[in-house]
């Protein structure tokens, strides 16, 4: 058990710190959350800087255009960029952490050459078209249909909760290519397609979240033509491909946020000392407990990263579900405590903690609800029987 970094890792960290210190002051001001074109430009501009400096796709394999960095180096990258207050992945989330890694591990050489470099350069933005109005937790029951017509699939149906759909160039889309029947259970017959978002027949209708902004959208598909060549993985084998995608989403997507939460916790303590709330032992103890919680979540992250480094696959295991369950809950507790620290200020939308408190509510829902994660832990890690 070794928590120290090697010389190589430390020099990587030092170089990154130096680059961040040089680069961050030159960034443009952050756009307003309601300005989507502005947000896209800001996020992709940041990605371009990372690319030019050699930090794009750090953990992607070399033959996918990545840097072939170890999981530890990737962890250092996420830690240092967060500590320095660098921009988040933002609109690049699906491309970098989700669709990209999926294409890197499941795509053909042509597909990798077509889609991966623009993601790394910040030229193209992806969104995720998995969920449907009637297929949420039960994702495999999705009904968006794709028929073969020559070299194209013709796709009709609707998707919902599609984050960044308004500004995306591509959508990782799950479609049904074989109807469910006695011989075809619902998990078979699904295919994974890369759909260009400017294809005729696509209508995007933004949805307003409880935080007021339009973070996601409904996407209606009316006989949209998608080339068969855009299918990643075999026809009807999309569920397996999807499992690869989801393990990335649950495994690595929240790492930087743990660092951010620890910073927020320190800010909460500072604010409470200033406004007198610190004298309340109940609140103080609550913050102390959160400190133990986020400290341990960071250690669990290091544990999981070391595990995937040893396995040599870089693919996060089901341990990601253990982490996600605890982290999403802890994040909500953190912002509940923030409400307590702020007192009446907690009702002021002008305070960033109030907005963060609102958005923390999505964490136990998005990327698989906490109930579903508990099913996964119980069935796949503990081996309890599947049931109704």
């Amino acid at each position, binding site marked *: 058990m070794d*928590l120290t970094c090697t010389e190589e890792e430390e020099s990587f960290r030092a170089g990154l710190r130096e680059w961040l210190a040089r680069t961050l002051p030159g960034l443009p001001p952050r756009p307003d959350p309601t300005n989507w074109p502005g947000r896209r430009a800001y996020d992709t501009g940041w990605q371009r800087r990372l690319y030019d400096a050699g930090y794009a796709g750090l953990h992607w394999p070399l033959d996918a255009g990545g840097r072939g960095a170890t999981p530890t180096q990737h962890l250092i990258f996420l830690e240092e960029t967060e500590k320095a207050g660098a921009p988040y992945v933002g609109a690049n989330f699906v491309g970098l952490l989700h669709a990209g890694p999926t294409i890197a591990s499941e795509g053909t050489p042509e597909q990798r050459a077509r889609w991966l470099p623009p993601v790394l350069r910040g030229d193209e933005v992806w969104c995720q078209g998995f969920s449907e109005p009637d297929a949420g937790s039960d994702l495999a029951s999705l009904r968006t249909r794709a028929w073969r017509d020559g070299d194209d699939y013709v796709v009709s149906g609707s998707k919902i909760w599609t984050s960044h759909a308004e500004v995306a160039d591509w959508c990782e889309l799950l479609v049904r290519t074989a109807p469910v029947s006695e011989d075809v259970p619902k998990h078979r017959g699904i295919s994974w397609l890369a759909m260009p978002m400017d294809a005729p027949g696509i209508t995007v209708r933004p949805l307003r979240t409880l935080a007021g902004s339009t973070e996601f959208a409904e996407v209606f598909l009316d006989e949209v033509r998608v080339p068969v060549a855009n299918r990643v993985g075999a026809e009807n084998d999309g569920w397996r491909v999807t499992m690869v995608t989801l393990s990335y989403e649950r495994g690595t997507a929240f790492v930087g946020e743990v660092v951010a939460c620890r910073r927020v916790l320190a800010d909460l303590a500072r604010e409470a000392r200033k406004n007198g709330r610190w004298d309340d032992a109940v609140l103080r103890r609550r913050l102390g407990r959160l400190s*133990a*919680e986020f400290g341990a979540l960071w250690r669990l992250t290091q544990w999981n990263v070391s595990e995937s480094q040893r396995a040599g696959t870089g693919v996060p295991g089901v341990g990601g579900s253990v982490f996600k369950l605890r982290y999403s809950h802890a994040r909500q507790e953190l912002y509940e405590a923030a409400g307590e620290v702020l007192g009446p200020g907690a009702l002021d939308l002008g305070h960033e903690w109030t907005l963060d408190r609102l958005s923390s509510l999505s964490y136990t829902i998005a990327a698989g609800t906490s109930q579903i994660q508990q099913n996964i832990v119980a069935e796949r890690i*503990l081996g309890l029987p599947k049931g109704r």
Partner: protein
Amino acid sequence: MDFQLSEDQRALRDGFRDLLAGRFDGTALRAAVDSGAPSLDRALWRELGDAGFFALRVPEEEGGVGLGLPEAVLIFEEAGRALLPGPLVATFLAARDVEGAARGAVVVTSVLTTADSGGLVPWLDEADVARGDVSGAVPLRSVDPLTPLHRVPGGGGAATPRQPEADLLIAAEQLGSAGKTCEMAVRYARERTQFGQAIGAFQAVKHLCAQMLVRTEIARAAVYAAAVTGDAPEIAGAKLLADEAAVRGARDCLQVHGGMGFTWEADVHLHLKRAWVRAGLGQSAAEAEEELAAAL
């Protein structure tokens, strides 16, 4: 960074697990529980000494094993799993300064205390050496059938400073117990059927088990990391999370066992009672939270 067990650490842990499985298995545990007055198995204590349990951190040039806190935590985790009785922590920490402790020939106890609740001393009557001020100690009727306790009036703790290493080793025992009760619950949930199916197929049971694992794994990360860094606030956090994992794990395990869980015959209550005792020894939750808050 390589925050995983090394080959040697795995072998050490497996070795102690095997030793305890052979020498202090479920039958031996029940025999100890049902013997009436708890007494220490001195032969077992010496065997542990021979296996290097107490001398694990004593430097090699002093005849010890020369390993560190991370290894210590692994063997205490095994002791916690097996519900091994005795003042293991105090004897372990006395290995360098009390003659005979490292060999398991001398049993040492100490006042393990929390500042507000006064001092508690486990196994005072059986120990050869007691460290800390035990004058005026009065026996309690201990809730744990395998941990006799004395109380030192007037908070003997005022004189005993906090011992982070003791807290860490207690946390490691709690971790072992949490892992064990999770396994016990899962095994029972797969065997016991009601309504024509294994109760583990019911989601309410499944989610109890899932949370037991989550609490165990978060405590594991905290305890192992605290052993690597030796950092006092990190140890405080590890004790806090491990106490919770052990106590809540045992309670949920009891719930999964239904009426059987409420019996003397099932081992569940032994884990719960020992977890309560360990939570009451060393740093309390309130103290840990205050220490962590102060460090923010």
